[in-house]
């Protein structure tokens, strides 16, 4: 076997070993993550950042998360350790996508973005609405006789 072929084989084996080690360690690759990845990162002690507004955060948030609205993120994150893992999430994934890009551009090495946001989170919640109203039982509201559509929104 020629020297070049031997080197190629050695390189290939090394790549496989690195991949196996990375996979077996359970550490997700930075980028979009799912609920299982977030649980693993929580165990690792990652910083979990809710980039929604304070009102949304108060309503309900992922247990252990801190609230840094997207508009404040650049200023607040400037003092954080850029080598530590940071997970961002929002309601459905739009604001966290912007937040992840912002943190990456600031030099953060391990930025994770919870795909689909808190809307699809199936783990523990904290906050006022964590004990939600029973499904199908509406609170007392003024009725006009017409069906009603409530839209709850924020300007962001």
């Amino acid at each position, binding site marked *: 076997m020629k020297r070049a072929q031997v080197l190629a084989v050695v390189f290939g084996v090394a790549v496989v070993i690195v991949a196996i080690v990375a996979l077996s360690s359970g550490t997700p690759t930075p980028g979009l993550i799912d609920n299982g990845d977030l649980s693993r990162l929580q165990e690792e002690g990652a910083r979990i950042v809710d980039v929604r507004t304070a*009102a949304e955060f108060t309503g309900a948030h992922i247990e252990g998360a801190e609230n840094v609205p997207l508009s404040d993120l650049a200023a607040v994150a400037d003092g954080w350790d850029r080598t530590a893992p940071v997970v961002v999430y929002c309601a459905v994934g739009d604001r966290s996508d912007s937040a992840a890009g912002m943190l990456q551009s600031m030099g953060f090495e391990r930025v994770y973005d919870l795909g689909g946001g808190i809307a699809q989170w199936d783990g523990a919640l904290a906050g006022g*609405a964590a004990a939600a*109203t029973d499904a199908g039982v509406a609170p007392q509201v003024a*009725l006009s006789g017409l069906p009603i559509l*409530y*839209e*709850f929104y924020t*300007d962001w």
Partner: protein
Amino acid sequence: MAPVVDRLKTEYEGVVEFRLINVETDAEGAQIANDFGVQYVPSFVLLGGDGAQRDLLVGEMTEEQLRAALDALK
């Protein structure tokens, strides 16, 4: 207010009452959201004429999705 909701509000005038709540700036907005168990914005809560909650939709909705939910209230 999103253009989709604006359009549908006009279209369903007299058929479905639209109540648009900014949870940050409207008085008691956050409290009303909490009463309905709304945890995320945008969310849409649909009530029948008797006040019974029929549906809770979470996230941005297409016009077709909202229209289907509104038509189900008739």
